[in-house]
């Protein structure tokens, strides 16, 4: 398609396209309403799942950064065999770091934690075992690694508290995948509705377009108002869910804040990104919808 005339367009002409495109919205009120609603619903779902996934991701990052577990060494293992175990640990794939904490160091740390109550364990000698603190690269592998570590001769027990993480991650992946399919369908529907609305406008104004073509208006000029119409529908369709999400998120965040330790990301941080994505999608749907519908009509 040619866009002759778009370049070097005069300000006055842009103003004219704006006015005409705006008027078009009301000429087919119901179609416009349907198209904007479709885009708004689509983007509302998209936005909600974005908000959700951004938060889950932040939460899981938070847990992930603490993804370490302890491997306790059996008391029967003599000190000189500890390096052997450490070497074996290093061989296991997916372990990022291995830190040895001796019986004595563990006791010292324990006493620090207990502080004034440290005499509670004074009479017990040192009940704590030697331990290795392991950090894993990928939280998804944690249970596999734990099993492997447990098999090493001399390791008594493995302990990790973040067993919820893999479940959380797999739920998140599933939610995201379903959302993508759902959203893709809705985006196509939104484009279809916008393109139909623009088509109807074009159809009702085909006489005007015919005359425009006969007196030498460029395709770019003729397209102007319809382009504006589609774009406006896309933007309005993005603004509605943006406002709803903003208000909704703020409310949910306040409510969640009452139940520590859960906290949601700051409203401004999340909404800045989400609104940007929604506007970009709205624009894309609107522009694409109007361009596609005009393609056929202008070939006169």
């Amino acid at each position: 398609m040619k866009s002759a005339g778009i370049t070097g367009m005069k300000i006055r002409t842009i103003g004219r396209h704006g006015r005409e495109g705006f008027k078009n919205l009301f000429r087919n009120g119901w179609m416009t309403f349907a198209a904007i609603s479709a885009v708004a619903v689509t983007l509302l779902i998209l936005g909600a799942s974005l908000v959700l996934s951004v938060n889950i991701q932040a939460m899981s990052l938070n847990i992930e950064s603490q993804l370490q577990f302890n491997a306790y060494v059996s008391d029967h293992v003599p000190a000189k065999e500890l390096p052997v175990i450490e070497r074996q640990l290093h061989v296991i794939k997916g372990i990022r770091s291995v830190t040895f904490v001796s019986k004595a160091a563990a006791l010292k740390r324990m006493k620090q934690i207990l502080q004034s109550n440290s005499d509670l364990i004074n009479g017990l000698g040192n009940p704590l075992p030697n331990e290795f603190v392991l950090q894993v690269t990928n939280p998804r592998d944690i249970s596999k690694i734990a099993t492997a570590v447990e098999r090493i001769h001399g390791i008594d027990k493995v302990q990790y508290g973040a067993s919820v993480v893999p479940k959380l991650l797999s739920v998140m992946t599933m939610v995201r995948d379903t959302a993508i399919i759902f959203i893709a369908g809705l985006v196509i529907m939104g484009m279809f509705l916008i393109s139909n609305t623009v088509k109807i406008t074009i159809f009702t104004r085909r006489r005007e377009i015919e005359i425009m073509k006969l007196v030498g208006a460029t395709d770019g000029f003729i397209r102007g108002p319809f382009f504006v119409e589609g774009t406006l529908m896309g933007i309005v369709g993005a603004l509605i869910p943006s406002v709803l999400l903003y208000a909704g998120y703020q409310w949910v965040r306040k409510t969640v804040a009452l139940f520590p330790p859960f906290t949601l990301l700051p409203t401004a941080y999340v909404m800045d990104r989400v609104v940007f994505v929604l506007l970009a999608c709205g624009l894309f749907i609107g522009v694409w919808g109007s361009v596609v519908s005009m393609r056929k009509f202008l070939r006169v």
Partner: protein
Amino acid sequence: MIEMQDVWKEYGNGVTALSGISVRIPQGTFVYVVGPSGAGKSTFIKLMYRQERPTKGHIFVGGFNIERLRERQIPIMRRHVGVVFQDYKLLQQLTVAENIAFALEVIEVSRKTIQKRVNEVLELVGIEDKRNMIPRELSGGEQQRVAIARALVNKPKVVVADEPTGNLDPDNSWSILKLLERVNDRGTTIVMATHNRELVNASKKRVIAIENGRISRDEERGDYGYED
């Protein structure tokens, strides 16, 4: 100047509308195109403003090589060719002045120039007093004057008219013809397809007759020549 060299036109449905048309129309002439319905008259006219493309052959209109014209040059070419139709093709929701100005607005002429040009053509076609009326309030003859004014407002070298008097009574047909002659006197080429025997016979101009897609007759100071 308009020139066609061995122009053929076959439509997608297999109908051959024109088979080998060659014609030369010097700048400033007034030409009637006559012939039975379906003989290829309309196609002949449509080729001149690139509503249709020839299947074969060359067409030159006012310095444009029509069949070689690229998509984006078509609008530029059309600003040099005024078109007038049987059904006027006016926009009903716009006033007379707005309808004429529309042709200049869409090619992004400045407001001041638009005003000046609109006044000039309104005066030329003689409907200055109707400038603020809408087409529905005008007679057929007056509406056709508006359409002619719109065709002229770009100062085209060529005006192509397809049955401009087809919907008009004899009196109005005459005054439209007089108007087109006046435009022709100012140096504009006029190509007018018509079924109006009286007009053709009375004014003794060049007549091109098209039958079965060919030029069957081309006479200076010719007659209508059909018995329909």
